[in-house]
């Protein structure tokens, strides 16, 4: 019983770590621009495909090769994120939120349908990029890939924290997210900060894409939809705009989902996230770690 519980705990944490990586991108973009970047889930998908195409170029099944693939996918995703921001969102900086939201949905659909044309609609199997080994500790079975996911996620989240709280760019990012106008008066170029935010968030999503593909070894152009939506739910659970909140929400959602998936209600697994979303928005819209704000006229 206990072993089973711990087993599910490990599975839940490694799924949650991926949600957390995606959720961070949502929460950061929401922090600076106050809108839901629907296309973020498809940046995650493109990250996984970038990994697929990079994998043959790197030595298979080695730590170094894995690092190269993840790094390359992060770079590709960051470039894509910056391009999306420049082409689709920047022209709408002064437009009503609804227009930006619709554009984001459009970009998301575009990436999915273009992905189906370019990558093919059929699921593709993802190659082995990290050394794959089945580990067993005290009756617990897990794969080395799950460990890789957790380690990577932890490093990336700590790295993000260092960037946000200990660099000039990070300070600018926090300033813009607190008050864009005041930040501009302090000499911060908001466009640069927003571009940086998109690059950072998309890179995390790209890493998430590869790590997801490593654990769930087929990828397809629509693979981002559900994890993306769930990661957004995770961001709200943790408190949108809060970086530790996104990480916490991701882990929490991964755990809840894995435990439900292991129970007799497993077919309802995909509805859990949305039920949680609605409950949270109704009763605690600020999320676990967020601060409630009063809207002023």
């Amino acid at each position, binding site marked *: 019983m206990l072993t089973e519980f711990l087993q599910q705990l490990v599975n839940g944490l490694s799924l949650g770590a991926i949600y957390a990586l995606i959720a961070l991108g949502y929460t950061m973009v929401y922090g600076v621009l106050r*809108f*839901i970047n629907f296309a973020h889930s498809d940046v995650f998908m493109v990250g996984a495909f970038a990994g697929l195409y990079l994998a043959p170029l790197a030595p298979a099944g080695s730590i170094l090769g894995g690092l190269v693939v993840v790094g390359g996918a992060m770079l590709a995703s960051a470039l894509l994120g910056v391009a999306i921001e420049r082409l*689709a969102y920047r*022209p*709408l900086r*002064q*437009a*009503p*939120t*609804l*227009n*930006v*939201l*619709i*554009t984001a*949905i*459009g*970009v*998301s*659909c*575009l990436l*999915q*349908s*273009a992905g*189906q*044309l370019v990558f093919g609609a059929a699921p593709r199997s993802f190659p082995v990029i990290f050394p794959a080994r089945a580990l067993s500790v005290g009756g617990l079975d897990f794969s080395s890939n799950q460990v890789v996911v957790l380690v990577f996620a932890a490093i990336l989240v700590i790295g993000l924290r260092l960037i946000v709280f200990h660099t000039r760019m990070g300070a600018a990012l926090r300033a813009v997210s607190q008050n864009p106008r005041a930040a501009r008066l302090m000499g911060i170029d908001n466009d640069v900060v927003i571009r940086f935010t998109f690059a950072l968030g998309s890179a995390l999503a790209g890493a998430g894409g590869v790590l997801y593909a490593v654990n769930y070894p087929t990828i397809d152009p629509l693979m981002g*939809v559900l994890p993306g*939506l769930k990661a*957004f*739910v995770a961001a*709200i659970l943790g408190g949108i705009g809060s970086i530790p909140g996104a990480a916490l929400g991701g882990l929490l959602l991964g755990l809840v989902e894995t435990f439900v998936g292991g129970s007799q209600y497993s*077919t*309802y697994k*995909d*509805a859990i*996230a*949305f*039920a949680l*979303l*609605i409950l949270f*928005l*109704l009763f605690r*819209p600020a999320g676990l770690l967020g601060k409630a704000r009063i809207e002023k*006229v």
Partner: protein
Amino acid sequence: MPPMPKAHLGFLLALVLGGVLSGLSDRIDPYHLDVLIGVGINIVLAVSLNLIAGHTGQFSLGHAGFMAIGAYATAAVTIFLGPHLIGDTAAPGGLAENTLFGSALLIGGLAAALAGLLVGIPSLRLRGDYLALVTLGFGEIIRVLLQNFEPLGGALGLNGIPAYTTVFWVVAAGAATVFTVGCLVRSNYGLGFLAVRDDEIAASAAGLDPARYKVVAFTVGAFFAGIAGGLFGHFKMTITPSGFDFSRSIEIVVMVILGGLGNTVGVILAAVLLTLLPEFLRPVAEYRLVLYSLLLIGLMLARPQGLFTFRTHRAVPRA
């Protein structure tokens, strides 16, 4: 205030037109008939979403969810109750059958309206993109629930739905939707929808109850989406939960955006256009979604008020 009788007259004319078309349906090419029915169903969907998203300004991404509820409820009535009520011997296309279908559609619409009421309640506290997410989540929950509900076919869907949908029913539903939504938003009461959309805080300061308007918009919009679902099910004769997913909702949203939020005539034109377009684009069918999404992005960048809107009410853009 436009004279009401004109609207009534238009509604009656549409009913007559539907009857005439239905009477002639043997002489119309079946392919054209199918396209016509598809156009009608999409008009019902787009105009009803327009009440929620366009006139009242509550962005909803779950319209396919309401449609699913209507489709399943209507089909459940005609499949499981129909044989007991009218027997197996009822003449095809006869009065008994059409009465059954009419009441089944009504039940489907009411079931969806109930769901609309439930979704409308969170909208009292949420706005903008949060609300969009709740409606999206709601649509997904409906889909998962239907996939797990074996009596209605589960993930495989419901087959063997009788082909009751005729041109008459589609035209009648389309006319009823346009008529109801049109009369609603032009009435004194209905100006409240526009007020809530334009500025919720100012509307409540002026003594209107935004919450009530939002709930009414969701309920009425969902009712007609449910009817469209019923028509759809009895037209295709088979429905699956995955047929009412997020991308179906998006399709309806694109129609409303293309036509212009709050512009009923524009939305009808857009529904016609977007239903006919894939028929003409069959040779390049795989590019259809790419085109749709480019259209959506391009519209938002260049013409956010929609293709067919030439005047905008809002004088001052919101900051």
